């Protein structure tokens, strides 16, 4: 299904590009006359966040490069399918890598169902690469491998610095923020879905991951006290032509600014939602955090309309993983202690 969608999107790419560039697409209106951005949108993508250096300042791939990318993706998908089929046919066969595996491929959304024509999501700096980090800005890397010793707070989403207590694990493992829900929300392994709601004076950006509904008052809104710091920040928005602009600040500094770097306490995030076709909303975000990066960062992630509903992602309610991680570690320590005696 997804392959069909990609094919269909790519074959209509030229027409969509024409529509975008000539600006002849007019978004439908809500009953209040606003551009209608509502619905469920999917932001899966296999476009790299940073641009491979060989493309220089080239923002879009050529037709030839697109075809080459599709061929690579199809080959990778076929290899993954073949490996999955082998596991079904012969489930007892030892895995050569020794890795028992994790998520079944069925759940993984590592391929975009929309625009795959960009060479990178980052469009500013113009080379599509991250600007240099400010000297002294914190950096920390999590991941699915072994723990990386470090200090609290753990600002990244997956992995951990130890298994001493829940605070030593990544924020997604604690079900405090989703690993893709941001803000800004970023294409990731799965659940790359967001639903937008609009009323007369309010928009809501709700990611499926950890049911995070960010309420955006439209129009004038007083800033909240600087001492009120929030995981998802404090947002307000307005329409600039047909584009919904959302400005968010008052982050709590307990998350990274972007790409394993920084603490987002001073970050100002500006997001723009533009409906460029019936089935496409361009999600553009700009990160401005002078304490972390020497320049701002702007990225564009196209989102594709999904004819379906999002589901309740009850992460915390089903977080058996945290119990098992901590209890397992205590058991290991106990066994080691008994073995040493």
């Amino acid at each position, binding site marked *: 299904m997804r392959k069909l969608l990609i094919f269909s999107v790519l074959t209509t790419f030229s027409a969509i590009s024409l529509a975008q560039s000539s600006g002849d697409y007019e978004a439908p209106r*809500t*009953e*209040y006359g606003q551009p209608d951005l*509502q619905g469920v949108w999917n932001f899966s993508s296999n476009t790299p966040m940073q641009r491979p250096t060989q493309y220089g300042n080239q923002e879009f791939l050529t037709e030839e490069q697109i075809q080459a990318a599709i061929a690579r993706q199809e080959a990778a998908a076929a290899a993954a399918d073949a490996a999955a089929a082998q596991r079904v046919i012969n489930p007892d066969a030892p895995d050569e890598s020794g890795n028992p595996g994790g998520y079944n491929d069925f759940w993984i959304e590592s391929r975009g169902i929309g625009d795959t024509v960009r060479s990178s999501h980052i469009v500013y700096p113009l080379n599509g690469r991250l600007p240099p980090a400010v000297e002294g800005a914190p950096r920390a890397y999590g991941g699915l491998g072994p723990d990386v010793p470090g200090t*609290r*707070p753990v600002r990244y989403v997956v992995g951990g610095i130890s*298994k*001493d*207590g*829940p*605070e*030593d694990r990544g924020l997604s493992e*604690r*079900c*405090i923020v989703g690993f893709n829900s941001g803000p800004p929300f970023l294409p990731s392994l799965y659940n790359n879905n967001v*639903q937008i*709601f*609009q*009323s*007369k*004076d*309010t928009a*809501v950006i*709700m990611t499926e991951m*950890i*049911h*995070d*509904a960010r*309420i955006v*008052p439209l129009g004038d*809104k*007083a800033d*909240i006290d600087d001492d*009120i*710091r*929030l*995981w*998802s920040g404090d947002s307000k928005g307005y329409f600039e032509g047909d584009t919904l602009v959302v400005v968010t600040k008052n982050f*709590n*500094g*307990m998350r990274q600014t972007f790409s394993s770097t920084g*603490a987002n*306490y001073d970050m100002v995030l500006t997001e723009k939602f533009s409906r460029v076709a019936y089935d496409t909303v361009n999600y553009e975000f700009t990160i401005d955090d002078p304490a972390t990066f020497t320049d701002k960062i702007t990225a564009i992630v196209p989102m594709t309309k999904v004819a379906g*509903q*999002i*589901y*309740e992602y*009850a992460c*915390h*309610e089903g977080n058996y993983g*945290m*119990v098992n991680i*901590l*209890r397992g*570690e*205590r058991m290991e*320590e106990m066994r080691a202690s008994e073995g040493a005696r």
Partner: protein
Amino acid sequence: MKTKFKKIISTSLLMSLAGLFSIQAIAQSGEISRTPSGKPDLSGIWQAMTTAHYDIEPHAASYGPYPREMGAISAVPASLGLVEGGKIPYNEQALRVRDTNRADAHNLDPLTKCYMPGVPRANYMPFPFQIVQSSEVILISYEYAESNRILYVDQPDLESQVDAWMGHSNAHWEGDTLVVRVSGQMENTWFDRAGNHHSYQMVVEERWTPIGADHINYEATITDPNTFTAPWKVSFPLYRHIDEDMQLLEFKCAEFSEEFLYGEFRKEGSPIGNPQQ
């Protein structure tokens, strides 16, 4: 006798006038806001004004769970309750479960673990919630645990596909009343801190009726043949937050429940919480 009759008549008249006055007072409290299509616009930030979240049945004030550590701060305030008729009509077995829950309520209440509260409990908790109304969907976003519900308006074929903590909500308008059928709720949610509970079979029919610019009359009829001998009903008013700068803030309580949930597996000497930023 004649004088007494006159007195009754004048008292009745006075009462009628008083009743009329209170209806007029409601009408005078402001016109119902409407969408361009003429439906009542329920958008805004709302909250119930009740202490019934401790126990939705009528109850007197009582000791809280930590009288030694917290004194009167942990005491349970009295409440007239929300249940029409006063008592929830449990069947015999379900009543025993309620009593077991109640005996250890502060440990067993799903809210101690920061689990989503379910419906109708989310609507009378001591936290505000925001309604964002569009024509085909209505979002209700609760400050508590960032719980939220999407109400699908006039889409009766969109059924619950998998049980959820906040259930699945199908809505339609009956005049100025928004009627919501909530099905597919997890059996794990409670009605209050007093152990009142239900099963997976529960269906809640909510009726949201605006009675002025800043008030909604909320009613919910609860049907669950596994647990109750008859349907029963709660009703209470909801009040709009009229402060100009009112907004929902975060209450991501997963963090605050970690020690309760995982503390026994913490390494000895590992501090609780993060350094202040």
